[in-house]
């Protein structure tokens, strides 16, 4: 249904006024007075409406509230219930219009003008307007609420200013140009003022939208809306009839009528239920389950898909904190750790292909930097990828003044045996396996390594607070393909600059250069320039090895063959990023 432009313009202003001043809940009589929805038309092949998708979740969602800190399960569920202004397409990894139909950036890069679609409605039928957008950002920026997303809206130490600039226009003012640009808006869900404002005024927003909430209390602009929750068992979402996307044939999305999440904590049990057909989609498979499911997949009507290297990067690092409270033992060993040749020797000795083969059954990729092959835009193809070489490691050590005694043990220039411990999180068996392999690799060049498995809280305490550790194996998952998301790891005063924390200023020239480059790219509007700057950062990291990068596991997903438009990607949510376009093929 497409009205003429003039009709819309004539009615727009007083319609908008009506929509805001009369709070309504799915009142059918209002629909005729609202402006028609300006749909977003997708480009994927058209599908067939109907059906139910059953997905397995390894943990229960803890909350439906986007303002409160959320775990992964909650994020997946909430992601299907809400929409943002501008959304990063998980497949192309580029921003595209969502609730906003268009936007423009001022020449100085400090003002984003965003135009909202007309005729938007929440899942309960209530109109979605500029005031809801303003309200949502007010919540995200509220200092008393401590939303975890708030820090993303602080650019150059100043929060973004959000202003209404028209009945369908919002202006975002930044204190400095922002390199990643409109990627900023991804995952900032637009929330219903008519349901949340009173709670906010009373200071009860944190307790809103818990899992105990009734379906009528929730509303969002996502493809689905909340229907039923059975604690410990399942969560049922139903199709949102007011969703703002259509397919090529102008059929309103989503195709699926119901989205059901089953809570199955143990992956082996989930695999069995996937095999038997009870579950339609199972992601984050272990390589072993992937292999055993793949054996008879076709006969059972299943597809096992390897989405390639994810955004997770695992690494080994040494304690380079120059903290006066460190124990004598650690300070003594830091003489080795701070030698670049030593770190490069260790990097030469580790067996990345072995890790890929043994720990991940081939379903991982060796990495030499934080940017994995799955990151299309930012990969530096020119980065050196030296293979494993114990000879090179020995040579580097020899040149740095190390020697070996008659038992083959490595000695430093003061004839002391080189030995240290690696701490790791016991809850992550893959990383502990990596540590075991590193231990054996270093034994080959005469270094005695002991492994100390720690519980996660204890591990963080040592790394971030007391710095009472020698080496550590850790992994991080990038939040976005854009490297700006990980700035705090590379900046010297960054809070996750884990190898050397609590620094006001850089301790080495190369760290100073990295600081400089990261600050530059954060406010550089031109992508090519940013890429060059970050390429240089990657080269500095490779040359100085503060983190010795190991491997990145692949995205492994199992799905029924009959599910159409399904394609796993590397950005979260890897399987449900296009849930509004998934459909059941009849054949």
């Amino acid at each position, binding site marked *: 249904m497409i009205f003429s432009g003039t009709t819309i313009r004539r009615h727009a202003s007083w319609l908008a006024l009506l929509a805001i001043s009369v709070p309504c809940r799915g009142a059918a009589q209002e629909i005729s007075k609202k402006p028609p929805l300006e749909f977003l038309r997708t480009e994927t092949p058209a599908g067939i409406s109907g059906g139910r998708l059953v997905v397995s979740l390894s943990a229960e969602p803890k909350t439906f509230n986007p303002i409160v800190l959320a775990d992964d399960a909650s994020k997946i569920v909430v992601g299907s219930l809400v929409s943002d202004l501008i959304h990063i397409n998980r497949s192309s990894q580029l921003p595209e219009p969502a609730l906003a139909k268009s936007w423009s950036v001022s020449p100085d890069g400090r003002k984003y003008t965003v135009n909202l679609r007309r005729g938007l409605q929440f899942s309960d039928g209530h109109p979605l307007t500029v005031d809801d957008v303003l309200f949502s950002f007010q919540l995200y920026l509220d200092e008393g609420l401590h939303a975890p997303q708030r820090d993303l809206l602080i650019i150059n130490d100043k929060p973004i200013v959000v202003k209404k600039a028209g009945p369908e226009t919002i202006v975002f003012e930044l204190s400095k140009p922002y390199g990643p640009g409109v990627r900023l808006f991804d995952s900032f869900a637009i929330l219903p003022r008519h349901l949340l404002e009173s709670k906010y005024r009373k200071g009860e927003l944190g307790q809103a939208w818990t899992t105990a909430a009734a379906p009528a209390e929730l509303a969002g602009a996502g493809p689905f809306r909340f229907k039923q929750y059975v604690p410990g068992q399942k969560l049922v979402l139903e199709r949102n009839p007011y969703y703002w996307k259509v397919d090529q044939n102008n059929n309103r999305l989503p195709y699926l009528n119901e989205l059901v999440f089953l809570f199955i904590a143990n992956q082996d049990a989930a695999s069995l239920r996937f095999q038997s057909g009870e579950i339609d989609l199972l992601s984050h498979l272990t390589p072993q389950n992937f292999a055993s499911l793949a054996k008879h997949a076709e006969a059972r009507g299943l597809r096992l898909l390897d989405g390639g290297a994810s955004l997770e990067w695992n690494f080994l690092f040494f304690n380079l904190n120059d903290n006066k409270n460190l124990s004598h033992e650690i300070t003594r060993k830091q003489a080795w750790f701070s030698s670049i040749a030593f770190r490069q020797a260790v990097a030469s000795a580790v067996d990345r292909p072995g890790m890929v083969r043994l720990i991940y059954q081939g379903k991982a990729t060796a990495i030499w930097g934080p940017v994995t092959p799955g990151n299309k835009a930012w990969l530096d193809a020119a980065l050196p990828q030296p293979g494993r070489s114990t000879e090179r490691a020995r040579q580097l050590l020899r040149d740095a003044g190390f020697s070996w005694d008659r038992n083959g043990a490595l000695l430093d220039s003061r004839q002391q045996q080189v030995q240290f411990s690696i701490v790791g999180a*016991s809850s992550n068996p893959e990383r502990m396996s990596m540590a075991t392999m590193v231990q054996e690799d270093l034994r080959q060049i005469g270094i005695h390594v002991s492994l100390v498995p720690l519980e996660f809280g204890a591990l963080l305490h040592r790394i971030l607070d007391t710095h009472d550790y020698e080496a550590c194996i850790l992994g991080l998952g990038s939040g976005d393909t854009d490297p700006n998301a990980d700035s705090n790891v590379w900046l010297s005063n960054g809070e996750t600059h884990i190898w050397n924390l609590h620094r006001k200023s850089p301790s080495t020239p190369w760290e100073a250069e990295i600081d400089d480059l990261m600050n530059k790219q954060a406010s550089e509007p031109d992508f090519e320039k940013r890429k060059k700057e970050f390429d240089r950062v990657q080269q500095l990291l490779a040359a100085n090895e503060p983190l010795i990068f190991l491997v990145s596991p692949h995205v492994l997903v199992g799905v029924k063959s009959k599910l159409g438009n399904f394609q796993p990607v590397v950005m979260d949510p890897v399987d449900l990023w296009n849930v509004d376009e998934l459909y059941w093929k009849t054949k």
Partner: protein
Amino acid sequence: MNKMQHHKLFLLTMVLAVLHAAVIFAGFVAPYDPATQNREFAFAPPTKIHFTNSAGQFTWRPFVRSSKGDEVGHSYREDTSELFPMRFFVHGDRYRIAGMSMSVHLFGVDAPGRVFTLGTDSFGRDVLSRALYGGQISLLAGLVATAITLLIGTFLGGLAGFYGGWLDDAIMRVADLFLALPWLYLLFAIRAFLPLQMEPLQAFLVLVVVIGTVGWARPARLVRGVVLSARERNYVHAARGFGASDGYIVWRHILPGAAGVIVTQAILLIPQYVMAEITLSFLGLGVGEPVPTWGNMLNALMQMSVLQSYWWMIAPALLAIPFFLGYQFLGSLWGEQVARVKP
């Protein structure tokens, strides 16, 4: 004890002695060092030992062939070109026994041949070697923890049951407390505060002692119950009438009655503590790699894919069960003796 029982006891003791010797002298019996990773042989199935050569003739000396796996270590095939005869009392990886460094092993094959009697694990380490070495730590942990638990439990339970009154109340309330508390966090805390430089084995033993110590409540309760009723028996009253001291009564009359319960507890606790180590490893409170224990080896088995495809990983359990059976039969034989139960 009649002749039949004597015979059985002797046989049982011999078998247990051999089993324990195999574990204590793991360095000798095991062909390889438990930490050596043979990365081209990950999850290799047990090496076939042949007695007939390619010409179809039987030979007294068993031999093995080399095998090759595919890219990710599946489907190993035997390479029939070369054969490696098994040799006995060979020189191999060095190991230490009682402070001495030795290199003689019970059996082995020349490199590059490999004899993985029970296959290999995910890193290509020989499972037999690891299982034997692992027994040292696991059995030690199980026995130490059981001993501590039973000592404390019997003492406190006996005290409570024998004297009754407020002492009984107090001890039982403390026992309830011990049963109800979530010890996990205490274990986490202890592990977190152990110094970094502590040997992994020492750290583990500290945890074992703690676990043994906190587990006294259940045996205490059971012993208390039995002592309570034994205390009121006629012969106890008679002995008192004769002027017997408390200690004498406990030793001569009460303990034998409680012996059945104590021995049953011991037989149950040893395997439970040995197996509890799996949970410890799972939670990150186990021994650090590459030290093998039955617990952390069985941990690898806790995945369906391993269970279905790599059946030899169950070796530690197969090795453990004869030990547990041995303890059980020994316990029941001895229990029969002390409690004077007729077979």
